[in-house]
Protein backbone atom coordinates (compact mmCIF):
# COMPACT_ATOMS: atom_id res chain seq x y z
CA UNK A 1 0.00 0.00 0.00
CA UNK A 2 1.45 3.36 -0.91
CA UNK A 3 2.28 5.64 1.97
CA UNK A 4 -0.04 8.47 2.81
CA UNK A 5 0.56 12.03 1.72
CA UNK A 6 2.86 14.31 3.67
CA UNK A 7 1.90 17.86 4.45
CA UNK A 8 4.21 20.57 5.78
CA UNK A 9 2.46 23.33 7.71
CA UNK A 10 4.01 26.49 9.10
CA UNK A 11 2.61 27.30 12.56
CA UNK A 12 3.26 30.68 14.14
CA UNK A 13 3.23 31.36 17.86
CA UNK A 14 4.85 28.16 19.14
CA UNK A 15 7.98 29.08 21.05
CA UNK A 16 8.34 26.61 23.93
CA UNK A 17 8.21 22.83 24.40
CA UNK A 18 5.15 23.28 26.62
CA UNK A 19 3.29 24.93 23.74
CA UNK A 20 3.92 22.01 21.37
CA UNK A 21 1.70 19.58 23.28
CA UNK A 22 -1.67 21.08 22.43
CA UNK A 23 -0.70 21.62 18.80
CA UNK A 24 0.31 17.98 18.32
CA UNK A 25 -2.93 16.81 19.90
CA UNK A 26 -5.18 19.06 17.81
CA UNK A 27 -3.48 18.18 14.53
CA UNK A 28 -3.47 14.51 15.48
CA UNK A 29 -7.23 14.62 16.05
CA UNK A 30 -7.95 15.53 12.42
CA UNK A 31 -9.55 12.50 10.72
CA UNK A 32 -7.04 10.98 8.32
CA UNK A 33 -3.91 12.12 10.13
CA UNK A 34 -1.56 9.26 10.96
CA UNK A 35 1.35 11.08 12.58
CA UNK A 36 2.45 14.62 13.46
CA UNK A 37 5.85 15.96 14.41
CA UNK A 38 6.89 19.54 15.05
CA UNK A 39 10.18 21.33 14.49
CA UNK A 40 10.26 24.09 17.10
CA UNK A 41 13.21 25.89 15.50
CA UNK A 42 11.39 26.34 12.16
CA UNK A 43 7.80 26.43 13.32
CA UNK A 44 7.11 23.53 11.00
CA UNK A 45 4.55 20.78 11.51
CA UNK A 46 5.21 17.63 9.49
CA UNK A 47 1.93 15.78 9.04
CA UNK A 48 1.72 12.27 7.60
CA UNK A 49 -1.72 11.25 6.39
CA UNK A 50 -3.17 7.75 6.28
CA UNK A 51 -3.11 6.18 2.82
CA UNK A 52 -5.97 7.57 0.77
CA UNK A 53 -6.92 10.15 3.37
CA UNK A 54 -7.90 13.63 2.28
CA UNK A 55 -7.44 16.55 4.65
CA UNK A 56 -8.22 20.04 3.46
CA UNK A 57 -6.25 23.21 4.15
CA UNK A 58 -9.28 24.51 6.04
CA UNK A 59 -9.10 21.54 8.43
CA UNK A 60 -5.44 22.23 9.13
CA UNK A 61 -6.01 25.94 9.69
CA UNK A 62 -8.98 25.32 11.98
CA UNK A 63 -7.02 22.83 14.08
CA UNK A 64 -4.12 25.25 14.43
CA UNK A 65 -6.43 28.08 15.50
CA UNK A 66 -8.12 25.77 18.01
CA UNK A 67 -4.65 25.09 19.36
CA UNK A 68 -4.35 28.86 19.94
CA UNK A 69 -1.81 29.49 17.16
CA UNK A 70 -1.69 31.12 13.74
CA UNK A 71 -1.50 29.00 10.58
CA UNK A 72 1.05 29.85 7.93
CA UNK A 73 1.73 28.34 4.54
CA UNK A 74 0.66 24.78 3.79
CA UNK A 75 2.71 22.70 1.36
CA UNK A 76 1.87 19.21 0.20
CA UNK A 77 4.80 17.04 -0.74
CA UNK A 78 4.37 14.98 -3.91
CA UNK A 79 3.22 11.46 -3.13
CA UNK A 80 5.78 8.77 -4.03
CA UNK A 81 4.55 6.57 -6.89
CA UNK A 82 3.44 3.02 -6.01
CA UNK A 83 6.38 0.81 -7.08
CA UNK A 84 4.02 -2.12 -7.64
CA UNK A 85 1.70 -0.27 -10.00
CA UNK A 86 1.69 -1.40 -13.66
Amino acid at each position, binding site marked *: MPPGAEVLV*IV*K*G*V*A*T*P*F*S*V*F*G*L*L*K*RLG*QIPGVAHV*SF*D*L*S*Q*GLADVLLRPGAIVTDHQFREAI*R*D*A*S*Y*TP*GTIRRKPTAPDEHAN
Partner: protein
Amino acid sequence: MTGRGIRRAWLIRLTIALVFTLATAGPALAQLTFPGASPISAGNLILMAQPALVQQTGGFQSAIAQGVLVYGASSRLALITESNLLVWNMAEAISNGKTVRLDAVGTGDTLQEARYTVFQLDGIGSTLRIAPMIGVTVPTGMDNVNSQLPHDVQPATGNWGGRAALTGSWQTLHWNAEAEIGYEARFPGTDYQFGNQFVTDAAFHYVIWPRQITADIPGELFASLETNFFSANANRANGEFVPGTGGQLWLVDPGLDWSTPGYGLAITALLPVMQTRYGSGRRYDYGVLLHFRLSLYTPHHW
Protein backbone atom coordinates in the same frame (compact mmCIF):
# COMPACT_ATOMS: atom_id res chain seq x y z
CA MET B 1 -10.69 23.59 81.52
CA THR B 2 -8.97 24.27 84.86
CA GLY B 3 -7.85 27.71 86.03
CA ARG B 4 -4.24 26.81 85.28
CA GLY B 5 -5.27 25.58 81.82
CA ILE B 6 -7.10 28.82 81.09
CA ARG B 7 -4.09 30.90 82.17
CA ARG B 8 -1.78 28.72 80.05
CA ALA B 9 -4.00 29.13 77.02
CA TRP B 10 -4.19 32.89 77.57
CA LEU B 11 -0.42 33.16 78.00
CA ILE B 12 0.17 31.20 74.82
CA ARG B 13 -2.17 33.42 72.84
CA LEU B 14 -0.61 36.56 74.27
CA THR B 15 2.89 35.36 73.56
CA ILE B 16 1.99 34.41 70.06
CA ALA B 17 0.30 37.74 69.53
CA LEU B 18 3.48 39.50 70.66
CA VAL B 19 6.01 37.25 69.00
CA PHE B 20 4.20 36.13 65.93
CA THR B 21 2.76 38.24 63.16
CA LEU B 22 2.02 37.16 59.72
CA ALA B 23 0.44 39.02 56.90
CA THR B 24 -1.17 35.90 55.53
CA ALA B 25 -2.18 37.92 52.52
CA GLY B 26 1.55 37.96 51.81
CA PRO B 27 2.63 34.92 49.94
CA ALA B 28 4.22 31.68 50.84
CA LEU B 29 4.45 31.06 47.13
CA ALA B 30 5.97 32.89 44.24
CA GLN B 31 3.23 33.99 41.97
CA LEU B 32 2.91 31.65 39.05
CA THR B 33 5.08 32.57 36.12
CA PHE B 34 2.91 29.94 34.56
CA PRO B 35 0.61 30.15 32.77
CA GLY B 36 0.81 33.96 32.58
CA ALA B 37 -0.60 34.66 29.14
CA SER B 38 1.02 31.54 27.65
CA PRO B 39 -0.89 29.76 24.89
CA ILE B 40 -3.30 27.14 26.16
CA SER B 41 -4.85 25.02 23.42
CA ALA B 42 -8.56 24.23 23.44
CA GLY B 43 -8.96 20.92 25.23
CA ASN B 44 -5.56 21.14 26.88
CA LEU B 45 -5.73 20.09 30.53
CA ILE B 46 -2.76 20.97 32.71
CA LEU B 47 -2.28 19.57 36.20
CA MET B 48 0.24 21.18 38.52
CA ALA B 49 1.42 20.54 42.04
CA GLN B 50 3.44 23.17 43.88
CA PRO B 51 4.69 22.26 47.34
CA ALA B 52 6.44 25.13 49.11
CA LEU B 53 8.19 25.66 52.42
CA VAL B 54 8.61 29.08 54.00
CA GLN B 55 10.79 29.91 56.99
CA GLN B 56 10.18 32.99 59.11
CA THR B 57 11.96 34.36 62.15
CA GLY B 58 11.16 32.96 65.55
CA GLY B 59 10.80 29.39 64.43
CA PHE B 60 7.66 29.84 62.34
CA GLN B 61 7.40 27.58 59.33
CA SER B 62 4.75 27.16 56.71
CA ALA B 63 4.40 24.22 54.35
CA ILE B 64 1.85 24.52 51.60
CA ALA B 65 0.90 22.03 48.91
CA GLN B 66 -0.94 23.86 46.18
CA GLY B 67 -2.77 22.14 43.34
CA VAL B 68 -3.53 23.96 40.09
CA LEU B 69 -5.76 22.85 37.24
CA VAL B 70 -5.72 24.76 33.94
CA TYR B 71 -8.26 23.94 31.26
CA GLY B 72 -8.29 25.34 27.73
CA ALA B 73 -12.02 25.93 27.30
CA SER B 74 -11.39 27.51 23.91
CA SER B 75 -8.42 28.84 21.99
CA ARG B 76 -8.66 32.13 23.93
CA LEU B 77 -10.38 31.20 27.20
CA ALA B 78 -8.59 29.32 29.94
CA LEU B 79 -10.14 28.33 33.27
CA ILE B 80 -7.75 28.13 36.21
CA THR B 81 -8.42 26.56 39.59
CA GLU B 82 -5.86 27.02 42.37
CA SER B 83 -6.39 25.30 45.67
CA ASN B 84 -4.22 25.06 48.76
CA LEU B 85 -4.75 21.35 49.22
CA LEU B 86 -2.75 21.21 52.43
CA VAL B 87 -1.50 24.04 54.62
CA TRP B 88 0.67 23.31 57.64
CA ASN B 89 1.64 26.30 59.75
CA MET B 90 3.95 25.73 62.69
CA ALA B 91 4.61 28.35 65.36
CA GLU B 92 6.61 28.49 68.57
CA ALA B 93 5.19 29.95 71.73
CA ILE B 94 6.51 30.42 75.24
CA SER B 95 4.50 28.99 78.08
CA ASN B 96 5.75 29.05 81.66
CA GLY B 97 9.29 29.61 80.35
CA LYS B 98 9.14 26.64 78.02
CA THR B 99 9.01 26.67 74.25
CA VAL B 100 5.86 25.03 72.94
CA ARG B 101 5.31 24.12 69.30
CA LEU B 102 1.82 24.63 67.91
CA ASP B 103 0.44 23.48 64.56
CA ALA B 104 -2.43 24.49 62.37
CA VAL B 105 -2.97 21.90 59.65
CA GLY B 106 -5.74 21.69 57.15
CA THR B 107 -7.01 22.54 53.73
CA GLY B 108 -6.81 26.06 52.38
CA ASP B 109 -8.97 28.22 50.16
CA THR B 110 -9.63 27.91 46.42
CA LEU B 111 -9.24 30.54 43.73
CA GLN B 112 -11.25 30.09 40.54
CA GLU B 113 -10.14 32.29 37.63
CA ALA B 114 -10.90 32.85 33.99
CA ARG B 115 -8.26 34.18 31.58
CA TYR B 116 -9.12 35.52 28.14
CA THR B 117 -6.53 36.43 25.50
CA VAL B 118 -7.37 39.83 24.02
CA PHE B 119 -4.18 40.45 22.05
CA GLN B 120 -2.03 37.96 20.21
CA LEU B 121 0.90 38.53 17.84
CA ASP B 122 2.43 35.32 16.52
CA GLY B 123 5.62 34.80 14.56
CA ILE B 124 7.69 31.76 13.75
CA GLY B 125 9.12 30.76 17.10
CA SER B 126 7.64 33.70 18.95
CA THR B 127 4.43 35.04 20.43
CA LEU B 128 3.29 38.11 22.33
CA ARG B 129 0.02 37.85 24.26
CA ILE B 130 -1.98 39.92 26.69
CA ALA B 131 -4.84 38.54 28.76
CA PRO B 132 -7.03 39.93 31.53
CA MET B 133 -8.02 37.61 34.34
CA ILE B 134 -10.90 37.65 36.77
CA GLY B 135 -11.50 35.32 39.65
CA VAL B 136 -13.26 34.57 42.90
CA THR B 137 -11.76 33.19 46.10
CA VAL B 138 -13.97 30.60 47.73
CA PRO B 139 -13.46 29.87 51.44
CA THR B 140 -13.29 26.11 51.01
CA GLY B 141 -10.71 25.55 53.71
CA MET B 142 -10.41 25.24 57.45
CA ASP B 143 -10.14 28.62 59.15
CA ASN B 144 -10.19 27.52 62.81
CA VAL B 145 -8.32 24.24 63.31
CA ASN B 146 -6.33 25.39 66.31
CA SER B 147 -7.94 27.95 68.65
CA GLN B 148 -4.60 28.55 70.35
CA LEU B 149 -3.26 30.20 67.24
CA PRO B 150 -4.30 33.55 65.74
CA HIS B 151 -6.76 33.63 62.86
CA ASP B 152 -4.15 34.59 60.31
CA VAL B 153 -2.14 31.44 61.07
CA GLN B 154 -5.00 29.10 60.29
CA PRO B 155 -4.84 27.12 57.01
CA ALA B 156 -7.65 29.11 55.40
CA THR B 157 -9.03 32.64 55.61
CA GLY B 158 -12.77 32.08 55.95
CA ASN B 159 -13.25 35.01 53.58
CA TRP B 160 -14.84 35.24 50.16
CA GLY B 161 -12.83 37.38 47.78
CA GLY B 162 -12.41 38.62 44.25
CA ARG B 163 -9.38 39.02 42.04
CA ALA B 164 -8.72 41.01 38.88
CA ALA B 165 -5.44 40.94 37.00
CA LEU B 166 -3.77 41.66 33.70
CA THR B 167 -1.05 39.36 32.45
CA GLY B 168 1.28 39.38 29.47
CA SER B 169 3.74 36.90 27.98
CA TRP B 170 6.43 37.37 25.39
CA GLN B 171 7.96 34.11 24.27
CA THR B 172 10.81 33.39 21.87
CA LEU B 173 12.83 30.29 21.15
CA HIS B 174 15.62 31.30 23.54
CA TRP B 175 13.85 33.23 26.30
CA ASN B 176 10.45 34.01 27.77
CA ALA B 177 9.20 36.97 29.76
CA GLU B 178 5.99 37.22 31.75
CA ALA B 179 4.42 39.98 33.82
CA GLU B 180 1.27 40.27 35.85
CA ILE B 181 -0.42 42.97 37.89
CA GLY B 182 -3.49 42.39 39.98
CA TYR B 183 -5.67 43.26 42.95
CA GLU B 184 -7.26 40.91 45.42
CA ALA B 185 -10.16 42.07 47.56
CA ARG B 186 -11.75 40.36 50.55
CA PHE B 187 -15.48 40.73 50.93
CA PRO B 188 -16.87 41.92 54.28
CA GLY B 189 -19.38 39.87 56.17
CA THR B 190 -17.30 37.82 58.59
CA ASP B 191 -15.90 38.78 61.98
CA TYR B 192 -12.35 38.45 60.68
CA GLN B 193 -11.44 40.00 57.36
CA PHE B 194 -8.06 39.75 55.72
CA GLY B 195 -6.69 42.88 54.11
CA ASN B 196 -7.01 43.60 50.41
CA GLN B 197 -3.82 43.07 48.47
CA PHE B 198 -2.04 44.51 45.45
CA VAL B 199 0.25 42.07 43.63
CA THR B 200 2.67 42.46 40.76
CA ASP B 201 5.10 39.98 39.26
CA ALA B 202 7.65 39.76 36.51
CA ALA B 203 9.60 36.74 35.31
CA PHE B 204 12.35 35.97 32.84
CA HIS B 205 13.33 32.51 31.65
CA TYR B 206 16.42 31.83 29.56
CA VAL B 207 17.20 28.58 27.77
CA ILE B 208 20.52 27.24 29.02
CA TRP B 209 20.20 23.82 27.37
CA PRO B 210 20.32 22.98 24.52
CA ARG B 211 22.36 25.77 23.07
CA GLN B 212 20.87 25.16 19.64
CA ILE B 213 17.17 24.55 19.15
CA THR B 214 16.83 21.67 16.72
CA ALA B 215 13.98 19.54 15.44
CA ASP B 216 14.39 16.64 17.88
CA ILE B 217 15.12 18.20 21.25
CA PRO B 218 13.39 16.32 24.11
CA GLY B 219 12.91 19.46 26.18
CA GLU B 220 14.58 22.63 27.39
CA LEU B 221 16.28 23.65 30.60
CA PHE B 222 15.62 27.23 31.67
CA ALA B 223 17.33 29.46 34.18
CA SER B 224 14.59 31.60 35.64
CA LEU B 225 14.47 34.80 37.61
CA GLU B 226 11.19 36.05 38.97
CA THR B 227 10.25 38.92 41.23
CA ASN B 228 7.03 39.39 43.21
CA PHE B 229 5.78 42.43 45.08
CA PHE B 230 2.86 42.33 47.51
CA SER B 231 1.23 45.19 49.36
CA ALA B 232 -1.51 44.20 51.77
CA ASN B 233 -3.83 46.20 54.01
CA ALA B 234 -3.99 45.19 57.64
CA ASN B 235 -6.52 42.59 58.69
CA ARG B 236 -9.65 43.51 60.65
CA ALA B 237 -11.25 41.68 63.55
CA ASN B 238 -14.79 42.82 64.25
CA GLY B 239 -14.02 45.97 62.29
CA GLU B 240 -10.89 46.85 64.26
CA PHE B 241 -7.40 46.76 62.72
CA VAL B 242 -5.30 43.79 63.84
CA PRO B 243 -1.82 45.05 64.78
CA GLY B 244 1.13 43.38 63.14
CA THR B 245 -0.76 42.37 59.99
CA GLY B 246 -0.47 43.87 56.54
CA GLY B 247 2.56 45.43 54.92
CA GLN B 248 4.75 45.03 51.88
CA LEU B 249 6.89 42.16 50.73
CA TRP B 250 9.24 42.06 47.78
CA LEU B 251 10.67 38.69 46.72
CA VAL B 252 13.32 37.75 44.17
CA ASP B 253 13.12 34.14 43.05
CA PRO B 254 15.92 32.43 41.13
CA GLY B 255 15.22 28.96 39.81
CA LEU B 256 15.67 26.17 37.30
CA ASP B 257 12.94 24.83 35.07
CA TRP B 258 12.94 21.70 32.90
CA SER B 259 10.14 21.74 30.31
CA THR B 260 8.99 19.15 27.81
CA PRO B 261 5.73 19.03 25.85
CA GLY B 262 4.24 16.51 28.27
CA TYR B 263 5.58 17.58 31.65
CA GLY B 264 7.69 20.09 33.53
CA LEU B 265 9.72 20.29 36.71
CA ALA B 266 11.04 23.37 38.48
CA ILE B 267 12.66 24.45 41.70
CA THR B 268 12.64 28.06 42.87
CA ALA B 269 14.11 29.88 45.85
CA LEU B 270 12.01 32.67 47.38
CA LEU B 271 14.29 35.39 48.76
CA PRO B 272 13.08 38.59 50.43
CA VAL B 273 14.61 41.83 49.19
CA MET B 274 12.44 44.22 51.16
CA GLN B 275 9.66 43.81 53.70
CA THR B 276 7.74 46.10 55.99
CA ARG B 277 5.07 45.19 58.49
CA TYR B 278 2.43 47.33 60.12
CA GLY B 279 3.83 46.78 63.56
CA SER B 280 6.65 44.61 64.79
CA GLY B 281 6.81 40.88 64.41
CA ARG B 282 8.08 37.97 62.46
CA ARG B 283 9.92 38.46 59.21
CA TYR B 284 10.16 36.36 56.09
CA ASP B 285 13.53 34.56 55.96
CA TYR B 286 13.32 32.45 52.84
CA GLY B 287 11.21 29.95 50.95
CA VAL B 288 11.61 27.07 48.52
CA LEU B 289 9.04 26.08 45.94
CA LEU B 290 8.86 22.97 43.77
CA HIS B 291 6.73 22.76 40.66
CA PHE B 292 5.44 19.70 38.82
CA ARG B 293 3.39 19.98 35.64
CA LEU B 294 1.59 17.33 33.58
CA SER B 295 -0.16 18.12 30.29
CA LEU B 296 -3.21 16.13 29.26
CA TYR B 297 -5.74 16.45 26.45
CA THR B 298 -9.50 16.17 26.15
CA PRO B 299 -11.44 16.57 22.90
CA HIS B 300 -14.17 18.43 24.80
CA HIS B 301 -13.99 22.20 24.53
CA TRP B 302 -16.06 25.18 23.45
